[in-house]
């Protein structure tokens, strides 16, 4: 098979206070896949995400992105390849205007002038926020800020888009708009969530992370349909939702 976009081998990590958050995670994500990373609160999902672009370095094991090992020397290239959308858009949007914020990443990659302009505009158009380019981010609605946050990493033309709990705090309409945007993108996606219907809607494949290890990996419908597995990892479907009867687009 081809070189995986994300290749994690035996990744283990303990926080400085001694808390062991990851106990040896193996995960491969291939080009063009959309994979959901499921797990209850505290499972280590965010910790894992921070390993994908070298914010955290594994105590044991290794991470590679399209064959490039995540090391100190490769950080800038790794961060171009892996675009992370963080949980709280207020953490991600820190510049005075939407345009400046979206330009921040590509500028760090050395882009300037018309090429930069084009990247910014394309990214904003991809999330339907081009008309807000000159607004300060803190004057946008939460759903709009989440979309701009997606644009800030799209502008770096990443090979894989990683979203940490993207549907949290969104109203149903914003949630659906974001799903439409994610489906329209031609990019590998790792969707970190405990919103199970969202995972089923967007990702053919799911991985369960529980207590710092991968507990299951397979087709989303099979995983959500396995009641014993779900129960064992504190994952619950919303009331009345049956994955066997959910229609998929």
């Amino acid at each position, binding site marked *: 098979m081809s070189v995986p976009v994300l290749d994690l081998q035996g990744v283990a990590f303990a926080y400085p206070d001694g808390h062991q958050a990851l106990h040896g995670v193996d995960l491969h994500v291939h080009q063009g896949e959309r994979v959901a990373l499921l797990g209850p609160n505290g499972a280590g999902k965010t910790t894992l995400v921070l390993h994908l672009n070298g914010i955290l370095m594994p105590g044991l094991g290794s991470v590679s992105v399209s064959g490039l090992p995540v090391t100190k020397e490769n950080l800038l290239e790794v961060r171009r390849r*892996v675009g992370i959308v963080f949980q709280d858009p207020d*953490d*991600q949007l*820190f*510049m*005075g205007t939407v345009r400046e914020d979206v330009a921040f990443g590509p500028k760090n990659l050395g882009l300037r002038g018309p090429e930069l302009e084009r990247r910014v505009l394309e990214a904003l158009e991809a999330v339907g926020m081009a008309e807000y380019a000159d607004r300060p981010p803190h004057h946008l609605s939460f759903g709009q800020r989440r979309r701009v946050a997606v644009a800030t990493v799209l502008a770096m033309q990443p090979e894989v888009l990683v979203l940490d709990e993207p549907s949290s705090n969104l109203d149903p309409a914003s949630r659906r708009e974001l799903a439409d945007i994610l489906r329209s993108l031609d990019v590998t996606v790792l969707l970190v969530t405990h919103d199970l219907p969202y995972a089923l809607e967007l990702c053919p494949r799911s991985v369960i992370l529980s207590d710092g290890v991968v507990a299951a990996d397979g087709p989303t419908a099979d995983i959500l349909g396995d009641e014993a597995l779900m129960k064992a990892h504190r994952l619950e479907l919303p009331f009345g939702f049956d994955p066997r009867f959910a229609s998929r687009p």
Partner: protein
Amino acid sequence: MGAPHGHKLHFHGHSWLHRLPAHVKLVALVAFMLTVVATPRDWYPVFAGYFLMLVALVAISHVPPTYLAKRMVVEVPFVVFAALLPFVATGPQVEVLGLSLSEQGLLGAWGLLVKGTLGVLASLLLAATTEPGALLAGLERLRMPPLLVQIMGFMIRYLDVVTDELRRMHVARESRGFSARDPRQWPVIAKSAGVLFIRSYERGERVHLAMLSRGYDGRMPR
């Protein structure tokens, strides 16, 4: 969330004063303040002249005087201090309404009040007629070190976020029966201030992570 335009001190408009480049206004403000401070406090007609000038500028800017008046409350601590001066200062005394007041103190209070008021009014007028972003760009054009401009930019950006957080904590406290009137409960306020500090600090760290994730290397790209 705030209004679609600018910040809480900004009053949207298109007057001549609004359109004047920010760095010109900044230099004018500093020059005005220095002049006011350097003016001897017993040149009464000159102060009247300064005041008329500001009134004319307010008129040009179309910012309602009540809008500025409401925001003048920041001056209150100085007013209180100035009002105390005639009672505590020493030297020759004068009789005013049956009270024996220090002459030096009276003059000192007048000087503090008039200079403070002129300065606050002029600054408010600048804030009311200039978008925060333009102000930062103006500072940059005046060769303010970019790092300082950046820090001020972050401050403006996160002011709303932090005040929002502060308001939510306040609502959560009150909802559980807290009353700021009761001195026995004041330690709670100190603790919430501590929590707010830690939250803001942690947010700072998260923002930094998000910046690193987009290739930030410690220098703002130009």
